[in-house]
């Protein structure tokens, strides 16, 4: 496309003549709408709409869920709750692995420190086999993250027969 055409691109914009009017209108409307949504009336109206929707759809949701559970049981397939409970258990296992990983890191770190300390101690005292520092074989208590507060698996996690 030529430069002239690029420059004239705006000319074919059907909104060009109305832009200033449009912006002024939007500005006014914006302020009015911000005031409107910031009112108690708007909060009450949207709350009522949401409540109405949830109340109206509840029987359908419950019926659908009940029928779906029955259908899945007939087909020996797990329900959504059971899959969710399984996922929760996986997360708990992941957390335990993470704790163990942290403890292993700590052990490796302590061992490395111990190895480093031994030659230094030996060169100072002339005793090559000086004992490791107290607690060197004890992994330091895990940091705050290691104190896992695990959620109990939900009842749906029980294996089905």
């Amino acid at each position, binding site marked *: 496309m030529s430069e002239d055409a690029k420059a004239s691109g705006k*000319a074919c914009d059907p909104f060009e003549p109305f832009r200033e009017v449009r912006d002024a209108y939007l500005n006014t409307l914006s302020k009015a709408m*911000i005031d409107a949504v910031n009112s108690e009336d708007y909060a009450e109206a949207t709350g009522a709409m949401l409540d109405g929707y949830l109340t109206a*759809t509840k029987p359908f949701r419950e019926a659908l869920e009940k029928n779906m559970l029955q259908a899945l049981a007939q087909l020996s397939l797990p329900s959504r709750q059971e*899959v*969710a409970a399984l996922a929760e258990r996986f997360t708990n296992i*992941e*957390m335990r692995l993470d704790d163990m990983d942290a403890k292993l890191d700590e052990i490796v770190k302590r061992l490395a420190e111990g190895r480093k300390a031994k030659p230094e101690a030996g060169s100072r005292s002339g005793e090559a086999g000086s004992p490791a520092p107290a607690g060197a074989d004890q992994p330091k208590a895990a940091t*705050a*993250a290691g104190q896992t507060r695990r959620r109990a698996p939900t009842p749906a996690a029980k294996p089905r027969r």
Partner: protein
Amino acid sequence: MAEAATLRDQMSACEERFSTLSRVMTTKADIAQTPKDLVWALNKAKLYRYQPVIDVRRRCRVPLLLVFAVMNRPSILDLRPGNSFVEFMVGRGYDVFLLDWGCPGIEDKLLKFDDYALEYLPRAIRRMKTISGSEEFSMLGWCIGAIITTIYAAMLPDEGLRNLLLLTAPLDFSNRAGLTFAKWVDEKYFDVDKVLAAFGNMPGEMIDYGARALKPVDNYVASYCKLWDNLDDPRVVEAWHAMNTWVTDNIPMAGATYRQLIVDLYRHNLLMKGEWVIGGRVVDLRKLRANLLTVIAQGDHITPPCQSEAILAKVGSVDKELYRIPGGHIGIMAGSNAHKTTWPHIDAWLGARSRSMPE
């Protein structure tokens, strides 16, 4: 003849504009492109480390952990090349880590702030310390991420947190008249338990609607008018495309976390009252001793300035600063002026407190 050529050129220009409009409205922009490595994962949460671009001798030894909100993607911190906070900080020599909370599934509906702040975050930090080799670290929390990082900083003050940056942090809910959200979620009108019983988690679309409805004309009309007016300007178009890609990528918020946000914070302001119990203990802000920078967006309609001001008087930090900046909730970090205002200030503040390591 010349008139025909002009008309043809105009038609061609018009066609090109509609083609651009169609592309940005129907496709996703390439965002979050700064090279990074996955270094830790737990459930949906992932910790990334950005690949350094600065020589190791000139690099900052105190790592920086970025923590964004739980109901949006953190890609806003790394929006697009040339306009990315992450890219800027990596370029300035910081060892940058990003915690991505991921998209909660129905199995995560019981996740609470307790879990995010005292289970996930400390584990991610532990991994970050191991990788970086530094026992000290800095942390930046933005929006709901600022709530999580504040809880962590107050409840685990001896875990090496040296610098805490809070961006547009919704911590104080006492000024109910100034908070539109507080009106909407008032217990007179909004039954949070009924919503969560129906959906499990708070759907991302509802959260998005809530955020957009605060300024409905700006978000639903004016934003598209701005795009239309600038369809010939590639810089504006690409910026709009990237932002729209992020804005429309909504994720749900874990049900129990949402309930805490509404009941404990919006309705009862428990954090500021010093009565918020997390992990069985009260969150005592006086125990937050890290160096603190609170960044407030003066034009923020999602987290008005009044929500972020009171924290400074409550914390035990000696070194603390409140930095006000013109702009909106997202614009201060991802807007076109962020690289001239917010980012350099964060770099200067953080650099002065991170370059030297204690003996």
